[in-house]
């Protein structure tokens, strides 16, 4: 009995000593500037989370002395029992000085963590805590003006569709997703009316929401099913608003069955790879420049709590060093449509074309923008409903 007790004590001592030695300075030596990245989905999802991951890589490359620490699949479905503040605690312990939370879903958690770690800098992508004044001094918001990307996507979709029916695979319903779906519609409508000279009533634009940013079996609607429904009911272009690429996959299947269909994924520049025959292009995020800007500010002591909604670089929206969003045209986009699209991008970059200009009406007929009124950022950011002409749920039942 005594022997055994001693053995147990020895084992315990061994582990305790292990922890005390190692917890001290795991990253002490070189002292890199560590930044943490919380990704809502898998880092290689060929969608939203991967675009952030690439952004982090870009920072490591561009800003010397930085080192990325990331954890992916940060959502209660994939990591039951794990909360954002816990992960932040852990990253701070590992030496992180700057932490990026990439999902709308992390809004509450990251704010809580920011209050708890006032000496650490936090960035919440897609949030508006700075705008609403809820954010502490060490929390900034960052987002790219994806509205333009979505307009281009809608534009390309409308030029391509043969049936005049465009499906929009929506994630959950909130202000962000509403305005992005609406932007897509505005782009499509513009192409339909101004380029194809058709009656806008003949354009069908259906939004179907699945309930979250990606598929959670048993919890959300299955995006594969939704995409299939679209294609089976005559929608020949499906634009994705979710983080993953189900619409492209389903479009390829339908294409192999001989159907003439197309898809536009979202978020990640490389999302079209391997789907040359159906992919019209992808509006994507390029987080690198925004990250670099904030990290540099934090390193140099010029940090202030900001709400950043970064424009594309209209000189070249696909410039990785300067443009926060881009549109990578896909091989399936016919060359004529491609020219139109390029023109459209150019015009968007000038003051001549602003699609968020009145008169625009909400779905229920109420006025969103009066005749000639140009929407302010806030008005676009906080869109209350989908626009008139779009079919689908607006969120407020």
């Amino acid at each position, binding site marked *: 009995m005594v022997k055994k007790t001693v053995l147990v004590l020895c084992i315990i001592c061994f582990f305790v000593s292990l922890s005390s030695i190692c*917890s001290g300075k795991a990253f002490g030596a070189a002292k890199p500037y560590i930044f943490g990245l919380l990704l809502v989905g898998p880092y290689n999802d060929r969608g939203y989370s991967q675009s952030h991951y690439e952004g982090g890589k870009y920072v490591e490359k561009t800003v010397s002395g930085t080192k990325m620490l990331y954890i992916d699949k940060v959502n209660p479905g994939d990591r039951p029992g794990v909360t954002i503040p816990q992960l932040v605690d852990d990253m701070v312990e590992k030496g992180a000085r700057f932490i990026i939370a990439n999902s709308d879903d992390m809004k509450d958690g990251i704010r809580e963590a920011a209050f708890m770690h006032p000496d650490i800098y936090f960035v919440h992508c897609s949030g508006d805590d700075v705008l609403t004044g809820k954010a502490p001094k060490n929390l900034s918001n960052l987002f790219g003006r994806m509205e333009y990307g979505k307009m281009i996507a809608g534009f390309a979709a409308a030029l391509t569709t043969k049936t005049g029916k465009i499906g929009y695979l929506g994630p959950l319903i*909130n202000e962000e997703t509403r305005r992005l779906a609406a932007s897509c519609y505005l782009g499509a409508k513009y192409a339909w009316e101004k380029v194809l000279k058709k009656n806008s009533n003949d354009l069908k634009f259906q939004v179907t929401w699945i309930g979250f940013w990606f598929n959670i079996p048993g919890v959300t609607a299955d995006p594969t099913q939704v995409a299939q429904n679209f294609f089976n009911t005559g929608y020949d272009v499906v634009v994705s608003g979710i983080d993953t690429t189900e619409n492209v996959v389903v479009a390829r299947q339908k294409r192999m069955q001989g159907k003439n269909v197309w898809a536009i994924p979202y978020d990640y520049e490389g999302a079209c790879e391997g789907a040359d025959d159906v992919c019209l292009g992808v509006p994507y995020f390029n987080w690198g420049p925004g990250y670099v800007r904030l990290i540099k500010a934090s390193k140099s002591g010029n940090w202030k709590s900001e709400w950043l909604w970064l424009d594309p670089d209209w000189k070249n929206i696909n410039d990785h060093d300067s443009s926060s969003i881009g549109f990578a045209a896909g091989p399936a986009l016919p060359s004529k449509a491609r020219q139109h699209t390029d023109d459209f991008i150019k015009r968007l970059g000038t003051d001549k074309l602003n699609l968020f200009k009145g008169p625009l009406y909400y779905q229920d007929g109420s006025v969103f923008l009066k005749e000639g009124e140009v929407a302010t950022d806030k008005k676009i950011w906080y869109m209350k409903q989908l626009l008139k002409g779009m079919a689908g749920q607006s969120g407020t039942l």
Partner: protein
Amino acid sequence: MRKFIRYFFGIKLTLIAAFSFTTLILLLSGASPFAAYYHIFKGSLGSWIKFAHVIAAWIPLTLCACGLLYTFRIGLWNIGVEGQMMMGSVFTTYALRLGIESHHPVLFLVLSFAAGLIGGGIWALIAGFLKTKGGVNEIFAGLGLNFVAQGIILWLIFGPWKRPGIASMSGTALFPPQLWMPYFSSIRLSPVALSLALIAVILTALMLRYTRIGLSLRAIGNNSHAAYLFGLKPGRYMLLAMIFAGGFAGLAGSIQVTGVYHRLLPAISSNYGYLALLVVMLANYNVWIVPAVALFFACLNVGSIQLPMMLRLDSSLSGVIQGALVLATLAVHAWQIRSKDKKWVN
């Protein structure tokens, strides 16, 4: 203390089997097993904050496990503990929603715990009635009710309780901080939750050892026919055991809402219910060993987040370790029984 040591030496075979299996898996996935174990260990017990995280997972796990001890005592497989936890959190959320505008947040916090207890209890009672009156096996009833509970949560989150203007599966709106369970902000640990779990352990131990209920549960679990001849009513005690299990699970659900997530979300139960089943089995249904095993599982759960962060391994590996443990337990147990039988026959 002796009991502990005896227990741990009793399970050394199990541990060896489980660890060799996980080591094999780790080697196959190309990682250094030592590094993996080291990171799990350090990620769970490496600092006070981490330990606090472990405790945060330990609390609901232990509560559920305590509840399960009652049902296991009477021979019921209360696999519906997961759903009972979910309904506990639903009832809690309901009570807290009433208190959002109130000037007496503490009152509503207390109320919400009572509601959680009741919610879990009701859900367990349904399974209990299906078992005693309808003859439905509690495993099937429990599984079915788990699905229903999950469905109710999803419906509430996407429907009546959605955030204004938003329809997302990510959860209901955050409760205001005055409706959060009070906690030490430095380590984010609620003393109330911790004491509830400790009380649950002690209460369960006392109940099972010193009360007629405990004795009767054990009697019925071991031989319900004979227990009936002793004047006990197995059906009633089954319902009672279910109420206890559901109550504790519901309390765990309350803590998940008020202490951890501060809102209702689809994965509110975090699989702690299912995990608790494994804990109780691995603890050999002994109330004093349950907290230790629960702590081990909580460490695995919390520490395994290091695997993807530090080693780029999938953190579901911790699930593999847990699975390996259970399999090893069952295998070693079966082997021991068989070798005992052999000895007896010879």
